[in-house]
């Protein structure tokens, strides 16, 4: 007897939006900026992997390749002033919130000039508004909930707390305790499940009893759910714009599920043997950058050669960041014990 039920799952209600309207609302300049940001994330991940293969980067390395549209759309729609919390798959969000490619690459290299001075590495990136880069699955969700609590306590009515998590986190109690507390106390928290279908090597249907995830669990906590195509940056933008407005009005949490895919293994050491080539190929046909590029070309905001130029520009930024990381000094071992405590 199989341990996991394989019955048909519930119907998904995708967030729908008026694409033409959103394109007009965002405007050409910002649309191209969104593309640049996604390309920067992609290039940083690709080069980071290469540096890892060369032995320049150690530890774990979780790539955001394939999922770029979600956080890019979110930060563009909501702005950088809110609190943000992410998992160990955090390079993209750090970039979007203003960490430079230089400081991120230097952190991957373990250098003194790194984002957290070589203390955290790939999984622990922080910015003034980003509470991590926290790497115990589900464990960061109460932290983000606490940021929502601070917002309410301090009456910062124009702020929300965004929390990104993977589908694997949904099996953790910390997530459900957070949803209960946020609903109970009316906290302005925007929880985002980035469902890339895999918790490491375990398919989501072998780990989570319900599908779609947000639509099921949100109702249990009397909060509003959304499901969005996480490969469509414009859908993500439109959704986060709408959701933020609502959360700021109501001070009620929401639970979003962005259906996405990762085009790499769980981490760099994962060859993805549990996944068929066809399955991965099919997923990559919906590459969020390619989909967005197509829209931009269709609307005549971009040509194929302009795309190549932009991609090249972002690649050059990352290459320069690698040079910076390479040339940066190692942390002085004398400083090893500094910073355990705040003054």
């Amino acid at each position, binding site marked *: 007897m199989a341990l996991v039920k394989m019955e048909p799952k519930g119907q998904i209600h995708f967030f729908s939006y008026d694409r033409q309207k959103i394109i007009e609302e965002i405007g050409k300049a910002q649309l191209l900026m969104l593309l640049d940001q996604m390309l920067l994330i992609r290039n940083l991940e690709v080069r980071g992997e290469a540096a890892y293969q060369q032995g320049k980067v150690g530890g774990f390395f979780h790539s955001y390749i394939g999922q770029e549209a979600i956080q890019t759309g979110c930060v563009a729609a909501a702005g950088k002033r809110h*609190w943000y*919390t992410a998992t160990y798959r955090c390079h993209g969000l750090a970039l979007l919130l203003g960490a430079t490619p230089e400081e991120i690459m230097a952190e991957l290299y373990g250098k003194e000039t*790194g*984002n*957290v*001075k070589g*203390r*955290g590495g790939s999984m*622990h990136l*922080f*910015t*003034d508004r980003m*509470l*991590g880069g*926290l790497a*115990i699955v589900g*464990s*960061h*969700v*109460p*932290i*983000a*909930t*606490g*940021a*929502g*609590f*601070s*917002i309410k*306590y*301090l009456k910062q009515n124009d702020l929300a707390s965004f929390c990104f998590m993977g589908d694997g986190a949904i099996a953790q*109690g*910390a997530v459900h*305790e*957070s949803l*209960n*507390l946020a609903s*109970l106390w009316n906290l302005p928290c925007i929880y985002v499940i980035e469902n890339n279908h895999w918790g490491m090597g375990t398919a989501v249907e072998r780990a989570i009893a319900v599908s779609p995830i947000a639509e099921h669990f949100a109702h249990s906590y009397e909060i509003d759910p959304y499901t969005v195509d996480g490969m469509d940056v414009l859908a993500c933008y439109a959704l986060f714009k709408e959701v933020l407005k609502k959360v700021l009005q109501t001070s009620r949490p929401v639970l979003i599920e962005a259906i996405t895919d990762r085009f790499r293994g769980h981490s760099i050491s994962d060859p993805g043997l549990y996944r068929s080539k066809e399955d991965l190929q099919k997923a990559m046909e919906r590459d969020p950058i390619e989909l967005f590029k197509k829209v931009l070309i269709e609307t005549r905001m971009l040509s194929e050669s302009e795309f190549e130029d932009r991609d090249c520009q972002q690649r050059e930024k990352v290459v320069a960041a690698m040079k910076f990381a390479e040339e940066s000094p190692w942390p002085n071992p004398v400083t090893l014990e500094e*910073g*355990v*405590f*705040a*003054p």
Partner: protein
Amino acid sequence: MEWQNVDIREALRQAIDEEIARDPHVLILGEEVAKYNGAYKVTKGLLDKWGPMRVIDTPISENGFAGLAIGAAMTGLRPIVEFMSWNFSFVAADQLISNAAKMHYMSGGRYHVPIVFRGCNGAAAQVSCQHSHCVEAIYGNLPGWVIISPSNAYDAKGLLKSAIRFNNPVLFLENELQYNDKMDIPSDEYTIEIGKAKVVQEGKHATLISYSRMLKFCTLAAKELAKRGIETEIIDLRTIKPLDIATVAASVRKTHRVVLVEEGHMYAGISAELGFQIMQHCFDSLDTPIERVCQRETPMPYSKVLESESIPNTERILAALEKVL
């Protein structure tokens, strides 16, 4: 100076009340802290005085509310988290260990976590296997926080106030059986510096070192020896981490004989650490091997006969003192 005679419960309540009054970012949350007035009444009257945004009842959700409080501390607040019992902190251990203790270092100094976790530690009256843990050795192994365990009302108030003002996580260990212990403390505001042990009784023949409720048994044992003209010096650690090894070493260099008393278990316990540090700093001053009296190596049994046999008591402390004298 004006004095007031208060028990530890009231001393703690005053500390929380005064700090809530002093800083609008201070709040307390936990199970039953508000409407119920605290499972042990430490927060009695605070909800009425400060309202539901400063004194907050939580669901039975330690991992959730401990993490929430850490997130709140990272984003501008100074929460006090009451664990009804430190035994329940194990449910929240991931938040304490993975987030609170590591955040400042891990974020390259970007985020600090000004938070106090407080509640009852150790055995109470026959609460058995799952409600009698001493957590200081378990948490003491990790860098990133301070561990305080007061033994009297004066220290409880002054140290809790300092803990709330401290910019890093503090684990504040109280004892249910001591909440009613009274003493005179100043009526005026005061704080006590974190990290300072106190010589509570001077002596020249042996040094007894402990903290929290076990000091009572140390005092009884010392009295017993005093009848024979043996003068025992007693040190209250007050702060368990960091250890005030300077005060300890000064005493050991004077008496040359040491007994360590710890309510918790022996293996990798606080006394193991303390004993090692004494060996490092005072090797040439020791006339006999260090002795320690700890909890026996079993889960805490229920039966009062077995329970009292499990925890250090005056007889066992006396026996250890006899060995070093």
